[in-house]
């Protein structure tokens, strides 16, 4: 037997693992934060200054914010019942439905744009019908909303599903036995209890819609959203002209996310 007491494991391997984990996490964190930080650092101030002088940038940002908001509203309206269904009900085909809803997250976004073009283009049945009804999608803000909705709605559905799943169904059961209809129990109990998760998912969806490029560029190049304008300036005038637009776009996506995290942190602190 050596000097160390038997049964007392050495702490040395644990320390080594902890140091390795900290190093790996730090490298990844740096890799994720550095490009955004550098982008905002290099072009943020100029981007904000140009908001006063560059009308095209202002229009692109306004269009981005408006279409992202419209896509988010549509995503929340259609996605909430779907998320609730997936969180609460056992039914045949649930796994297939889940996979279908995750599909837009897995395919390349230009491919998503092409798929939407096939569905909504003027040569398609649906696109043709919409055009004859006076509703043109491709090449209009509607196309932007469609592209944003397609790529970002699965994020909302996934987050909302998780938020609903965290609410014990027995809260609803109690509400039902206390006289609530299913809808009333949902509105009075489930919705307030899952509120934070739903808001967070909506913000994530909105931020994702704001930053979408691949599907939008196929469906609606003009009028330009901020991501397309950034690309357009990069290919037309080089990095110097693209940088302020890209930096403002990054800020636009980051602000609500940061605000959400800050509010949530304060909320958690208050709850404790």
């Amino acid at each position, binding site marked *: 037997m050596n000097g160390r007491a038997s049964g007392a494991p050495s702490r040395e391997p644990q320390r080594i693992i902890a140091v390795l984990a900290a190093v790996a996490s730090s490298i990844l964190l740096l890799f994720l934060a550095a490009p955004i930080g550098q982008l905002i650092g290099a072009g943020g101030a100029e981007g904000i200054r140009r908001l006063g002088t560059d009308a095209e940038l202002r229009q692109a940002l306004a269009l981005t914010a408006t279409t992202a908001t419209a896509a988010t509203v549509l995503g929340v309206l259609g996605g909430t019942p779907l998320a609730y269904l997936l969180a609460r009900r056992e039914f045949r085909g649930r796994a297939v439905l889940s996979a279908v809803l995750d599909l837009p997250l897995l395919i390349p976004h230009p491919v998503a744009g092409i798929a939407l073009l096939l569905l909504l283009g003027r040569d398609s049945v649906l696109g043709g019908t919409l055009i004859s009804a006076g509703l043109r999608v491709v090449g209009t803000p509607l196309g932007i909303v469609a592209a944003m909705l397609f790529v970002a709605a699965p994020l909302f559905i996934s987050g909302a599903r998780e938020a609903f799943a965290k609410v014990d*169904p027995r809260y609803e059961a*109690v*509400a*039902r*036995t*206390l*006289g*609530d*209809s299913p809808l009333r129990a949902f509105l009075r109990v489930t919705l307030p*209890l899952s509120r934070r998760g739903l808001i967070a998912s909506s913000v994530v969806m909105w931020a994702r819609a704001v930053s979408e490029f691949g599907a939008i560029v196929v469906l609606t190049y003009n009028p330009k959203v901020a991501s397309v304008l950034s690309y357009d300036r990069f290919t037309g005038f080089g990095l110097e002209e693209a940088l302020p637009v890209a930096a403002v776009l990054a800020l636009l996506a980051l602000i609500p996310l940061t605000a959400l995290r800050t509010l949530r942190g304060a909320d958690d602190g208050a709850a404790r």
Partner: protein
Amino acid sequence: MIECQGLSARHGTFRLAEVTFTVPTGQYGVVIGPAGSGKTTLLETIAGVVPATAGTLRLNGRDCTATEPEARGLSLVYQHAFLFPHLSVAHNIAYGAASSEQAEAVARRFGADALTGRPVRALSGGERQLVALARAFARRPAVVLLDEPFSALDPRRRTIVRREVRNLHREWGLTTLHVTHDFTEAGLLGDVAVLLDEGRALQWGAPEEVFRRPASPYIAEFLGAENVLAGTVRVLAEEAPDWLEGEPAPIAHGYRAIEFTTGALVLYTVGDYPLGTGYAVIRAEEIVLSLEPPAGSARNRFRGVVAELATLGALTRVTVDVAGVPLVASLTTRSAKELALKVGTDVTASFKAMAVHLC
């Protein structure tokens, strides 16, 4: 009235299978059974939050098998209360209340009125149960379903709240079904006891009947019967035996005198149990111990030796070795001291024929 007829349901992988029992209007039913036996699922099926897959459920004469939970006129209290954390205590109690006056009155009766100023998250488990009870009764339901509603209360508060629930049950003529692990509670509250195991109602009836006359050795052991003996049954006479003199009169009608042999012991009882092998159940409190053979009418008397003594407060459990068969008797600690019982003391264990239940 709660009337379940072959009621079946499925909750995840658990199955409630053909449960049948009746709790008449205005009576207090208790559901007992081991953990995982389906007690909560049974309440949820009666409440309608778990759909019935077969059978029928009638509440106060109305077929409610497929009725929505909100239209069944009942309240459900879970063990973990499930107070709505986004609402105040007062709003929780008033959630489905018949009126605000009703909510306030019921809150006062359960002592939950003192909690209305506190956030739900700050309440203890026991306080949550008080608020959950107030919330359920404030609705003024016809049927109340309670799932271990006193489990987090301290003993003193538990006694007070149990009495209050029983009082409301009587005053309002409610039909109540109460899940409990506590046999004392079941005996104190219940007019009807339902024994559930693995999703099936094994036995139901008056608690006295279920506890004294369990339908199987498993039930007997679950209900804490100390003496469950395997043996063989032989009929002595087809009519009431002469040694039944002094026994309750109804037993004499159609019952037979039975001899039950277990190891070296031969017990005598009456009943209609078929011939062959079976089990005899004798509750410990039915066995009387004496130093000399007693002069009373007890048909079963055995000389034995005290093998073990266990004092549990006011009661002492004495295990007597009778020709290799252990018989457990329960007597007051005072009686045990008066008899000066100790391991090795020779005693007579006696019990009446009626104390032996065959199953």
